């Protein structure tokens, strides 16, 4: 294990620079949109030729580290519901273990890489289509930054959540922050399903869990964000531990990714104060669609034994993320310069 710890500092400089740079890009996306980016890490590692358990395990350990940093910030803002978090942790832990067991089983059958890639194509493609459609309609996607700044008493519970709260009254009932009363079973089921996804794909699952908390449980947006991150700290730690026991966590991958993403998240988060996210969300949706296509191309390349196709897939995944992160940076600097020069800032 000491070899693994030391290995973090003995990789080739090019590889270290690639991981730090990719981490920076992922961090900017995470800080700006509050989601995404992290689920580009596992497919990128798969396309780089890492075994499925290392790609998923290291992706999960990276998510764990990122969540620790983000939770420290949200704790300071008082946006964490620890009771909800504790119930979510129990359900998610079971889900992660079921997902992890599935990966190891598929790996024994020699199907893990293929099945995980197909799942990513469907997931990235589905979410990409949803975000793009909502961005085109002007409804945005990802986290609504303005909603996150509202007072909890101003928050309106979505109709779906109200219906669930009225119909599912199986005890024990739990009262959450924002005076939300919901069955503990609803929380546990939501947690289990998102945990299953986390354990199977090595992602934090926030992009599924946060909408689920808001629309199925009825948690106010800022509390959903903070509690989700708090929950990811635990689920990420447990998932990383389980994968680490099977040799699935490579510190040589995780440490440089984290070094870059911690800085990127600060930049992305600061950019939200300057730029209207709606103008950029369409690029985010496009990035997910390109990511889905890239994973598909990479998988076909792997099946055909074509290194060229695998390289095209990897370049597309990283390239799409870099383009969107660069668009955020460019728009931020231009908006700030416009304000500095006394002109109204552009939204996109």
């Amino acid at each position: 294990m000491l070899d693994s710890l030391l290995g973090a500092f003995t990789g080739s400089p090019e590889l270290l620079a690639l991981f730090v740079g990719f981490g920076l890009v992922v961090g900017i996306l995470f800080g700006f949109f509050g989601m995404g980016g992290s689920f580009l890490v596992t497919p990128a590692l798969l396309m780089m030729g890492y075994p499925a358990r290392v790609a998923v395990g290291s992706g999960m350990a990276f998510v764990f580290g990122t969540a620790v940093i983000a939770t420290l910030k949200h704790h300071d803002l008082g946006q964490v519901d620890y009771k909800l978090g504790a119930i979510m942790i129990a359900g998610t832990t079971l889900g992660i273990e079921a997902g992890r067991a599935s990966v190891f089983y598929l790996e024994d059958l020699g199907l893990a890489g293929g099945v995980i890639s197909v799942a990513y194509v469907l997931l990235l493609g589905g979410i990409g289509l949803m975000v793009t459609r909502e961005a085109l309609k002007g409804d945005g996607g990802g986290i609504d930054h303005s909603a996150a700044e509202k007072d909890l008493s101003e928050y309106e519970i979505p109709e779906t959540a109200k219906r669930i709260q009225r119909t599912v009254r199986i005890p024990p009932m739990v009262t959450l922050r924002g005076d939300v009363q919901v069955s503990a079973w609803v929380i546990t089921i939501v947690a289990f399903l998102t945990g299953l996804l986390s354990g199977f794909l090595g992602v934090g699952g926030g992009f599924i869990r946060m909408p689920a908390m808001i629309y199925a449980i009825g948690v106010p947006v800022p509390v959903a964000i903070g509690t989700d991150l708090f929950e990811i700290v635990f689920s990420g730690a447990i998932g990383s531990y389980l994968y680490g026991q099977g040799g699935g966590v490579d510190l040589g991958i995780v440490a440089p990714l984290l070094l870059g993403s911690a800085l990127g998240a600060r930049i992305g988060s600061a950019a939200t104060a300057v730029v209207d996210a709606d103008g950029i969300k369409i690029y985010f949706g496009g990035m997910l669609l390109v990511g889905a296509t890239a994973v598909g191309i990479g998988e076909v390349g792997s099946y055909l034994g074509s290194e060229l196709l695998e390289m095209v897939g990897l370049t597309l995944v990283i390239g799409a993320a870099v383009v969107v992160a660069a668009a955020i940076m460019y728009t931020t600097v231009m908006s700030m310069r416009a304000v500095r020069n006394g002109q109204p800032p552009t939204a996109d």
Partner: protein
Amino acid sequence: MAGLEIPTWDPATALLIGAILLEAVVLYVGYGGLERLVGPWVMRVLVGGDEYA
């Protein structure tokens, strides 16, 4: 099929996860300090002022 398992205590894996946790905390504190230290200078270079820093 690989069954569900209860995590067993493994000091080496715990050290690995602890190293990631430590790195995350160090980065949070370190980048926070760095932001206060060089943030205004970066804003001057990029924008010509530091009202957003």
